[in-house]
């Protein structure tokens, strides 16, 4: 009797582990792009100023080139910065174009630590490209 009970418990425990393991295989592919990925429509370079990055006011300088290597003008450029730690409001910003293909986004690093910044470029024809960069901000 005890043996059959132990067997039943072992089967249930194995089933739980199997089910939870199955859950992992259904994970979606991450949607963010790695920082060094080659983008077909635009090539985006992001630079934070001032460097090194410290808490306080800053700006993100986004340089966008077309696939043929010419400055991409007339785009809408925005950025969103999330801390890797949960519980911090993200920082959002919109860029303005200065020199052709160079967009400046007023920015603020609100907390020291690790940030993930998504820079999104939208063209009038609906093309949208997002570049993700990782930034460590010092106190």
């Amino acid at each position: 009797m005890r043996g059959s009970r132990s067997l039943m418990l072992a089967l249930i425990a194995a089933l739980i582990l199997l089910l939870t393991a199955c859950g992992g295989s259904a994970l979606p592919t991450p949607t963010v792009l790695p920082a060094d990925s080659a983008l077909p429509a635009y090539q985006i370079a992001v630079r934070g100023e001032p460097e090194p990055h410290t808490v306080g006011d800053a700006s993100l300088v986004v340089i966008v080139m077309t696939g043929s290597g010419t400055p991409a003008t007339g785009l809408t450029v925005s950025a969103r910065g999330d801390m890797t730690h949960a519980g911090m409001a993200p920082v959002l910003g919109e860029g303005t174009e200065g020199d052709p293909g160079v967009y400046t986004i007023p920015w603020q690093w609100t907390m020291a630590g690790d940030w993930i910044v998504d820079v999104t470029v939208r063209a009038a024809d609906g093309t949208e490209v997002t570049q993700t960069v990782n930034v460590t901000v010092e106190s």
Partner: protein
Amino acid sequence: MSAASPVTRFDALRLPGLRRVARMPRGRLVFQLPMLLFALLLMYDGFSGPQRAGQNLATVAPWVHYRGLVVLALLLAGNLFCAACPFALPRTVAHRLSVRGRRWPRILRGKWVAAVSLLALFFVYEWLDLWASPLLTAWLIAAYFAAAFALEAFFTESAFCKYVCPLGTFNFVYSTASPLQIGVRQPDVCRTCVGKDCINGRYAAQPVIRVSEITTSPPIPVFVYGEGAASPASGGEVAATINAKSFDSAPSTQHSALIVPGCGTLLFPPTIQSNLDCTLCLDCARACPHDNVGLFARAPGAELKKPNAWPARWDVSLLVICLAFLGLLNAFGMTPPVYDLLEGLANSLGLPGAGLPPAAIDAIVLGLLFVAVGVVLPAGLSVGAAALSRRLGGVSKRDSLRHTVAAFAPAFVPIGLGFWIAHYSFHFLTGLFTIVPVTQRFLTDHQIGWFGAPDWSLGGLPLGVVGMIQLSALIAGYGVSMWLALQTAQRLYRRNAMLGYLAWALLLTGLMLAGWWLIQQPMEMRGSFLFD
């Protein structure tokens, strides 16, 4: 049990809603089911949602809001989160299977396993940056369900809650500072209670049972059996008959015919001196056939100044003291000096050039830090303080080191709770409203537009306000700890009280200064391996 008059203090179980829940055979489900659904939701979002910690319910709800609410609940009410624990639900199913199973091994019936599991949880949290990973947090929740089920399936008592659960262990320790405690209304009722259902559990064979004496006039039926006549149906002679009408009118109470478990952690309500091990599940109140169990108000932390409220055991004492140090260490992990320390430690050991992967280097240096600051330092300092206070107090021959450490261990609860409140309230209050856009994000991702698009501008309270709250928690905890240690020294050392107090006062003051220094440090929310 000594003879005592009925308790007249405020009893939370007399409040209409709670009273009803405490009497319902499945009353705990009222709290557990929402928490279970919430835990499943977190797992779902953790596995399938965006893998950004700030955008996922699996990371925001547990690491920002749950922890903040836990410490506040412990301070203001009691161990509410164990009461509503969703992990106890599959545990309950498992428990049904293991009623005739083994007891938890005697050698493990202490707090050593729980202390190690708590240390392991904090270590894994830092090592794998759980706060930054919805996926790993979801796996942690799944592992919790599996562990609770497995342990309860193989052992009879609530072994997971009492001997293993790291979250429950944290709650047990700091619920000793809470203003509510399970007790009994009339101790004399327990003295004459035969079944002790509050601890043994109860099974009512039928849904209506009589709770007061059934009249014997007219006479109750008495069957006289001859040899071989084992039941009335098989031929007992009826010597008298019952008056059915009077039986029906006897006072009765409604009960489920299903089993009502007794206390899973084996606490007997009339003898409870401490909230240690109490999950506030209220099973004792449900099982009591005399409606004699209450949840009474007391001075917050009243048990901390009661001699002998806690067992004088190394495992309990060191758990409490180490947990205060771990409160500091956990916060230290968010400040810039920790990175310099870990890098220096790794370099001094020659780890970067040893060909080890970054995660392994992280694990080694973090493990060393945890063992040193979370175990060796508190154990060494508290034993040293005990030796010094015994000597200066003039009682070296009377009190053992174990008894001295146990006597002063409760003084580490307020300062430890102060550290944890300071740390957890930082995340909770600075991210107070971030749960709103994350919930909006989840709903809109699933085509539910009830609350509109996520408003990512919602954050929390200003850092200046949060800093004031942190300092207040730290100072209040330190003040109460110093007072408790003084009370203990006066009780143990009488005329030499101040001398015996000195070592503990220095230790507590050192802890407070370390906490003060930490709060002044700029916080860095790192979420990546140090040795990439």
